[in-house]
């Protein structure tokens, strides 16, 4: 049985179900239920649902401390870039403590934040910075692209014994989708093949998955069959599924809302270039945001970001028609 809810609703559904299932689950953050007639407050009380000051360092550090003593906090951080003011807690404390303690302690917590709000939010609220977390041993990074995954991955994130960065794309907030009723888990490290195809592999992350699928339909009308893969979790990354697909197609296009230089898609490109060397028939092409801060004005914003046309163009390039050299 399933029901239809918006992406954001699916996330809250998972949090609420887990809070009911396990009383060690906490949910707090800025502007989380400031008044008492909020459903979560009614259901779980003020102790477990808390509104906190604008103190990211303290909010996240507190979550680490609470996790060390047996809680499973979910911290609402609103926007991924706000984590930048608390990066020491995210990078130097949460993912390190288990390791440095020789495995004595564990730090089960979820840092929930929206990202990629490329809708006129200008330079400090639009960043797609998951690449910064994927290079940090000890952290797991989750980027759901559908309502069902949003629920299933949140459930898994809350039950995971490690710090998990749960990033939901703001542009997907109100996208409705079918979501399984009741308890629902999506395992980490398992990519989803959103569309089968034999000519080219497209790996897209978050919001870009939808764009890739639209582009794939357009290409299909030209007789090009694209396989579209959604990694769903970036750390751990399901490289096998990508490599298996590239073995079949020999061609890879990566679609990423982040800026190109030092991006996560560069990391996928590097892995495939190395481990899939013998299968590659053409250079891997990346369709990413251009290397600039996201500008405020709409035409400039659109110019920087990936779109269906750019994806289709890249596919044509790897299929050999147009020259590739950067």
């Amino acid at each position: 049985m399933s029901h239809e809810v918006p992406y954001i609703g699916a996330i809250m559904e998972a949090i609420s179900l887990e809070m009911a299932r396990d009383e060690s689950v906490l949910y707090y953050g800025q502007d989380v239920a400031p008044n008492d007639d909020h459903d979560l407050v009614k259901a779980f009380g003020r102790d477990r649902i808390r509104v906190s000051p604008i103190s990211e360092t303290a909010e996240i550090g507190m979550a680490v401390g609470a996790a060390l003593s047996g809680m499973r906090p979910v911290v609402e951080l609103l926007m991924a870039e706000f984590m930048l003011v608390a990066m020491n807690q995210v990078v130097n404390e949460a993912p390190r403590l288990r390791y440095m303690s020789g495995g004595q302690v564990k730090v089960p917590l979820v840092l929930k934040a929206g990202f990629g709000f490329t809708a006129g939010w200008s330079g400090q609220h639009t960043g797609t910075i998951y690449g910064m977390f994927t290079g940090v041993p000890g952290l797991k990074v989750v980027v759901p692209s559908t309502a069902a995954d949003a629920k299933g991955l949140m459930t898994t994130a809350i039950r995971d014994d490690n710090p998990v960065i749960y990033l939901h794309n703001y542009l997907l907030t109100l996208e409705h989708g079918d979501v399984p009723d009741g308890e629902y888990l999506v395992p980490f490290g398992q990519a989803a093949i959103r569309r089968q195809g034999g000519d080219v592999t497209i790996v897209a992350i978050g919001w870009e998955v939808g764009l890739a699928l639209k582009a794939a339909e357009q290409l299909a009308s030209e007789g090009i069959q694209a396989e579209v893969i959604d990694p769903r979790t970036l750390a751990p990354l399901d490289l096998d599924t990508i490599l298996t697909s590239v073995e079949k197609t020999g061609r890879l296009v990566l679609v990423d809302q982040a800026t190109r230089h030092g991006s996560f898609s560069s990391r996928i490109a590097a892995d495939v270039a190395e481990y899939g060397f013998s299968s590659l028939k053409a250079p891997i092409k990346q369709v990413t945001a251009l290397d600039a801060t996201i500008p405020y004005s709409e035409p400039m914003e659109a110019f920087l970001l990936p779109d269906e046309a750019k994806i289709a163009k890249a596919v044509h390039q790897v299929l050999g028609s147009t020259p590739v050299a950067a």
Partner: protein
Amino acid sequence: MTQLDNDRLIWIYTQMLRIREFEERVKRTFEEHPGVIRGHTHLADGAEASIVGSLATLKPGDQLMATYRCHGYPIALGTDTKKMMAEIYGRRDGLCGGYGGSMHLVDPSVGFLGASGIVGQSIPQATGAAYAAQIRKQGQVVLNFFGDGASKQGAFAESLNLASLWKLPIVYIMENNNYNVATRSEQEDANAAAGEPLSVKAKAYSMPGVTIDGTDPLAVYDVVEAAVARARAGEGPTLIESKVYRLSAHGNLIAPPGVPLHYPEHEAIAVFGNREEYDAALRGDPVPRFRMRLVDDGTLSSDRADAIAAEVTDEMQAAVDFGLASPFPDPERALDFVYA
């Protein structure tokens, strides 16, 4: 109490009115020209007295930095409102060429070094500007404006300690509107919860802390002027809590593309169902109050006041027209200015 001459008093009133009218037009744009403003805007209506009263103390060469609720300062400093509106509309002739938008206005030519979109993060930068001023030794002072929420950021504590330690020429003005978006101060601030004025935080850095009624421009002027004088004299920073009431919601609706943006009801009503609080604030609206005061004490004739109002209305209408008429930037320009 400082005696300001009539022209200065009228200047203060005019700036308050210009800020109010400009922001009214920003707000109305969401209804009259849907889709023209994207992203997030934040209005300072209710804080005009605090803004202008503070800026009235500045001399040429002084500088200021603010938070993302930043329309008022450049207006009072003399930035062209046409360019400001064009920026908020994302147009080529905008103050920042369409790169920044409402949260990131900058105009160094009038001493406005800019604002940060991240709560509390302009505080260290303003502190650095004051550090530069101290080294330059030209008697410059820096004003730094931020909200009550920012005082729970580490950046606030680190910066005030530094400024006090180094006796930097800066005045920190915390505009306390009692809400962090939809959270009331007493829900997130230990001092507020204990019923104390937030200026007590200054104790932690051994700097003076003063709390003032931010709806009275002259009261603001007196206190800020003293703090500015102290800073100029090399005696160090001051923390001023200026109590204001934000008459609009935190900002326009936060929604993904496609959903029409507009200003929802103020959080006092929308979240806490407290209409009395909001209506009381409306009754205390500093702009009409100050006009009444100037007219009553004969500083300003009601004819002159109406004339000023008419001029301001025309100016802001012109700003809107200019903004709408201005073309969008060339998309390719998006790669400019990544590096100097």
